[in-house]
């Protein structure tokens, strides 16, 4: 079957916000380089200090959704030298995905700023 795309009509990055937690972490892990599924998972676990552990099921449910939304793209399969050289499918951020991830990061930054402005969090010294 042909891949399904359920891209919202107005393709602005803001229309995707707020991003689900899993989605944001996956986009972040793909920001510096292309990765395959396990690598994404390891990266997310490492960055969150094992707080967010993605199961194969939730990882690929998210990947499927991100592909359909056009936020990430699939690359050709290639061996992974780090992991026993089996052929893995790699993913990369699309330009739209990058814009969306940035928009989400800015949104979070703004939230943080708001929290500081109200004194909820200590101001940056």
């Amino acid at each position, binding site marked *: *079957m*042909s891949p*399904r795309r359920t891209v919202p009509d107005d393709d602005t990055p803001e229309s995707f916000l707020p991003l689900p937690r899993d989605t944001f972490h996956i986009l972040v892990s793909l920001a510096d380089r292309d990765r*395959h*599924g*396990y690598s994404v*998972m390891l990266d997310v676990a490492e960055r969150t200090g094992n707080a967010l*552990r993605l*199961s*194969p*099921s*939730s*990882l*690929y*449910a998210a*990947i*499927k959704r991100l592909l359909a939304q056009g936020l990430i793209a699939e690359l050709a399969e290639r061996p992974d030298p*780090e*992991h*026993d*050289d*089996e052929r*893995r*499918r790699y993913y990369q951020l699309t330009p739209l995905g990058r814009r969306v991830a940035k928009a989400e990061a800015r949104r979070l930054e703004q939230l943080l700023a708001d929290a500081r402005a109200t004194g909820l969090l200590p101001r940056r010294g």
Partner: protein
Amino acid sequence: MTPPAGRRRPSRAVRVFRALLALYPGEFRDEYGREMAFVFADRHRAASTFVERLLVWTEALWGLATQAPKEHVQMLLHDLRYAVRALRKDKTFALTVLVTLALGIGANTAIFQLIEAVALRNLPVAAPDRLAQVRIAGGNRGFGITTSYYAQLTRPVWLELRRQQKAFSGIFAWTQGQGRVGDLPEVRNIATLYVSGDMFGTLGLTPWKGTTITADTQVPCPNRTAMVSHGYWMREMGGRELRASERLRINGEELQIVGVTPPSFTGLAVGEPFDAVIPLCLPHGDEAALRRELFDVAVVGRLRPGWTLQQATAHLDALSTGLFEATVPTGYDASGTKLYKGYRLEAASMQSGVGAVRDRYDKALWLLLGMTGLVLLMASANLANLLLARAAARDGEVAIRLALGGSRPALARQFLVECGLLAVVGAGLGMVLAQGLSRLLLWGLSTTAGAPAIALRVDWRVLAFTGAVSVATCLLFGLAPIARTSRIQARGALGTRGASQDRGRAAIQRVLVSVQTALSLVLVLGALLFVRSFHRLTTFDPGLRRDGITVLMLGYEEAQIPRERRSEAQRAFVAAIKTVPGVIDAGTTTNIPLLGGSWGHGVTLGSVENGANFTWIGPGYFPVMGLRIVEGRGLTLDDRRESLKVAVVNQAFARTFTGGASPIGRTLRTHPEPEYPATDYVIVGVTADTKYNSFQGETPAMVYCPDSQFPAIGAWATVMTRSDLPSETVLRSAKAKLRQIQPGMVVDSFDFGQAVRDGFVGQRLMAMLAGFFGIIAGLVAVVGMYGMVAYAVERRRRELGVRTALGAERWQLIGMVMRQAVTLVLVGLALGAALALVGGRVIKSMLFEIQPNDPWILGGGAAILAASALLASYVPARRAARVDPLEALRQE
């Protein structure tokens, strides 16, 4: 961090995980399954301790359990969206299918709803499956007097049974009655439920308001209390709070209304709700005064825990001898007494109550359900054809999708979702339609007394039925195109159309068309039989006049005419009725013919002993009913109480008792019964044979005696009145006239012809619906045939073109195309005739004066169907002759 590279056989854990991936939809698994297995393998490998591995497994399983269903739902939604889009593009197709399904499913649901209400619904009481009715196995076989349709036992038997039985934890007797309420002489009737014993306790019912009536089986007359039904309370009393002063004047007795029964409980007989519950009191408080030949109650008990119906029957059977021995009525001869003592009691299920409506229409309704089922089946076959044609048009799309890597299961699912969507929407529309249709059906069963009081509703059974019908329909018309996708070649369909696929479709179509022809023959024959049967019924001459007769009923009790004066007063009343303008003649009778009532006595004439039906009549009865005297004389006013006892018999009587020789001058002697001592009657005349209490059955031996010599004159008189004015007019004038003589007398009436016709409503409905379904079935078959031949012509265009080019004649081409149609019709008709002959046995008892294998009907039905099917195939076949050879060849 990771073990050194190297290809290994996947570990057992990975193999298990891969197997679990089967939980996902195929497409998702194909796309991501391998990668997911890699990820799992990596994680499992990285987990070094048992606890870590356990964590990996927990996460993996949790993920599967939560994500896999989501994927299925997403897939289904996607398929649904696709199906909706496809159907919106093809509105004519969608509309055709939906209308067909809505009508088909609607008709089936409507009839099932009626069946549910009439036959399947439980009594709305606690644990209805533990309720049993106690009755005489095989009935009382005409012994004594049976007062109503549901009466099974005499009251002495009931009281004795109550004392002796051990099978039931609670037991009560009940009977229906009519109560006259209001002030004389303007009274009206309400439906009463007489109950003896603890009905409320046995059924587990609690009063809606107030308290229950007494549970005492021996409560002496007159009654002091009554309960009213919830319906009566709302309708007549405005649902007001009950006060201690609340009274109901019923049959001249003043009763205190002590409570209201719950709204769900409308009585023990389906379709016959009651207005008031009254204790079945004991006259003079004396059990010995109860009449032992009067079968006037039905008995219901709740089985003790652990007892089955079989055990209860065995127990009752063991009690029977002593019970009937102790209650044997006096005044009968030896044979009557022997019959009575031979009765055996049995227990039968009372789970869904009793019901004359059910006894009368149950079979007809199931038959109608069968008919609508067949029509839906046939319509589904046409839909399958339509879907096949549509699927053929989509071959290109399917092939492209297959070539692009779409999986066959996915395609099959797409088809299934599409027809599932149609079936669900069709079922929804059908359900809505059914609400109207079922009420229309019920209305079709209505008589002058109104439609049967049956509450139709949508319960789980109706929903389950509609659901099952829709699923079956969807599978029926959806599976053919699905089966077909398996033969489409990804490449093949992209090129020229594969001949093998067309052959496959044609084969399916041929089977469908023959089956359709067979089924439609069955339905057409059923239609012809029921219509013909109903026609015979309405035009049948029972030997008695029916039209222009008003039945007047005079109540003597309210008018307080003492018994010894009734005979004399009756003559004066009839004479008065005869002077009413428009009245031609009038005569009393003790039994109204053709309406089901029967009245028999044992008779001895010479050496012959047999039963005969007795009617005591006034002199006007024969002229009113148009009864012909074939020999001797009729009855006259000179036949008085004190004169010689005389009788007029019918020809059937002469055949039975005198071997056809003239019975005039012979003396018949009746067998004794309570109130009817053995009496000698001299036969003075013979009447022509007529039907007795129904149109069905042979004419029994009948005896007419003068009403002046009737030994047991009762509280009512029935006067058959012939007039050329409407019944209402006759009633109004007769009432006025009679009140001049006897103020305060209750006079009731109904139209005799209308009452007889009311008895035909079942047959009328059957004829109408069977006729309707027969026509629909014929049309469906014709459409199917047309579609098949049209497709065959289309498929063979090229061949036909070549033949035309080679000089084949027009008629040769038409014949060639139609040969197949003829064969299929013949196969279908043969199959249908066989089915009809088998099915005929089922409806034999429902037909009047016609056999289910009537050769004219069989031949006529087959001829009509064959002619229309051939016509339907001729129209497209003519097109075969018009194929332009050049164009046909160019197209390929």
